[in-house]
């Protein structure tokens, strides 16, 4: 077992190594892989953003939300409406979507001030169910185009960025969406990290751990909860914008816009590790990988899986995915990040700074 002092040269080298590995993967994927693979990574980015936003309210503040699919949809629809009806350039819709979702998020937070646990889950569930219905509503069809949804809201010609150079055609768009997605993921991560490590972030965890004690320490429960819901909704909407720009379409029963979306976000967050910064990132990668791998199983009759599932009319993808997730939850009740931390401690231990050295004298 390796023992490394926190803040020592070796600790920094270890961090640098981690950073280098991530950078390598991030450059390797869009330059060396097929555009469908690149697209899968962008899908993972979209899930990461949504799961990170959910993590802020659920993982760190302990306020359960099953309504995040609505925030996701609000982001997607804001982008679609602004691009189609108002001729906005797609890039700017990120900001607008974040603002709209922030306001809606703050309003949805109001019930969270009075109720908690399963009751809050039910209220947010209602939001998730309500959103697609609202979008389909005839009287709103002038805005949302009703159940047929909106299409061709993607980048027609992707902007030319330095380094990337000119990107053309479907392949070019896939590469561009990958980089755009990565930027949003990194931005979302930095916002979450900034919040969690700050005074505001400590207040969030304090509310999760003991609401009463947080209040008597001077934490304003109302402001804190409303703000965190607003920020979370805004971040989730960024995922929605990205998803719409990638596929070019959004419908009331589109991917992650319905209640199912909220469940997937929840799953990604918990499988990755709730209340950790990296959990949703790992969770997003694992979920998309599992989803794409299991999808093809059972379509051919060969092999063990074919023998096992060949009798089924439908692809057993959902069944296998569900089983794998159950196994993961048994093996890693604190998520994959929790598991990695536990196993990692057997190999490398980061020794915290000795007592009395945190405050400069």
């Amino acid at each position, binding site marked *: 077992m390796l023992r490394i002092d926190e803040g020592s040269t070796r600790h920094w080298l270890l961090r640098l190594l981690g950073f280098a590995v991530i950078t390598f993967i991030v450059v390797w994927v869009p330059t060396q892989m097929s555009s469908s693979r690149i697209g899968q990574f962008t899908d993972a980015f979209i899930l990461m953003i949504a799961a990170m936003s959910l993590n802020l309210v659920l993982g760190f503040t302990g306020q359960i939300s099953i309504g995040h699919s609505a925030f996701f949809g609000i982001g997607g629809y804001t982008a679609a409406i602004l691009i189609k009806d108002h001729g906005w350039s797609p890039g700017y819709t990120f900001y607008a979507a974040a603002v709209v979702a922030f306001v809606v998020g703050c309003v949805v937070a109001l019930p969270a001030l009075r109720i908690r646990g399963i009751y809050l889950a039910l209220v947010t569930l209602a939001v998730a169910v309500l959103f697609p219905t609202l979008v389909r509503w005839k009287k709103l069809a002038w805005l949302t185009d009703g159940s047929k949804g909106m299409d061709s809201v993607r980048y027609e010609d992707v902007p030319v960025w330095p380094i990337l150079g000119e990107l053309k055609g479907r392949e070019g768009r896939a590469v561009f969406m990958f980089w755009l997605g990565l930027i949003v993921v990194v931005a979302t991560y930095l916002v979450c990290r900034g919040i969690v490590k700050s*005074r505001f972030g*400590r*207040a969030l*965890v*304090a509310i*999760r*751990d*003991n609401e*009463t*004690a*947080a*209040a*008597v*320490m*001077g*934490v*304003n*429960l109302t402001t804190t909860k409303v703000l965190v819901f607003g920020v979370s909704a805004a971040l989730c909407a960024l995922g929605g914008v990205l998803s719409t720009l990638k596929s070019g379409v959004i419908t009331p029963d589109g991917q992650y816009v319905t209640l199912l979306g909220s469940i997937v976000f929840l799953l990604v967050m918990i499988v990755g590790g709730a*209340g950790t910064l990296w959990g949703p990132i790992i969770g997003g990668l694992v979920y998309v990988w599992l989803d794409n791998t299991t999808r093809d199983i059972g379509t051919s009759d060969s092999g063990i899986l074919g023998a096992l599932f060949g009798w089924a009319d439908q692809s057993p993808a959902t069944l296998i995915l569900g089983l794998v997730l159950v196994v993961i939850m048994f093996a890693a009740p604190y998520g994959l990040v929790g598991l990695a931390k536990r196993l990692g401690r057997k190999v490398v231990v980061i020794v*915290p*700074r000795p*007592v*009395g050295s*945190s*405050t400069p004298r």
Partner: protein
Amino acid sequence: MSLLEVRALSAGYGPVEVLHGIDLDVDHGEMVVILGANGAGKTTTMRAVSGMIGRSGSVTFDGVDITRTNAEKLVGMGIAHVPQGRGTFPDLTVMDNLRVGAYARSGGIAADIDRWFAVFPRLAERRDQRAGSLSGGEQQMLAIARALMSHPKLLLCDEPSLGLAPLITQEVFEVLKKLNADEGLSVLLVEQNANLALKVAQRVYLLETGTVVASGSAAQIASDDAIRKAYLGA
């Protein structure tokens, strides 16, 4: 004028009234203990004073009427509450618990943390541990240190001996007594362990089903045979 003046305070939970108009004072630099059986309304009194539950009557703190002020504001005004059962944040580290304690103010926080680490050396050793991994006694110390981070004039301490071994309880009381004597910190204490509380406090209120049935100096109460028999077990 007293630091804390409570007049005709009534409070409860929903339709149930627990306190039926109590009067209570805490002077500057005084340590006052509220004694009483389970269900007498001790914890309710604390919650009503710190603004966590609805109340009627009047509460004046440092000359300001705080009857309508909410809990978060009171922290900034100088009332710190150590809730019953400690209420530390188990998933935050010891350091971060203390930082949350200073939530209502800013500046000089690191120096304050060092100061309370000097008073509670055990906490310094465990600074980077999750509060949930501390022992009961350490958690109680942490809860007190955390409350002190807000620079209170009045510390409300709700049954610090709960679930602690007698020796640890004594340690906690030593600290409270020291803070009271050396720093002039006013303390309002709720306690079941009457004998110990009478040794450290200057004045006593005896609470029974939501009303004050007796009050006086600690020495008076301790020597009153009738009270001793009824409340303190001979």
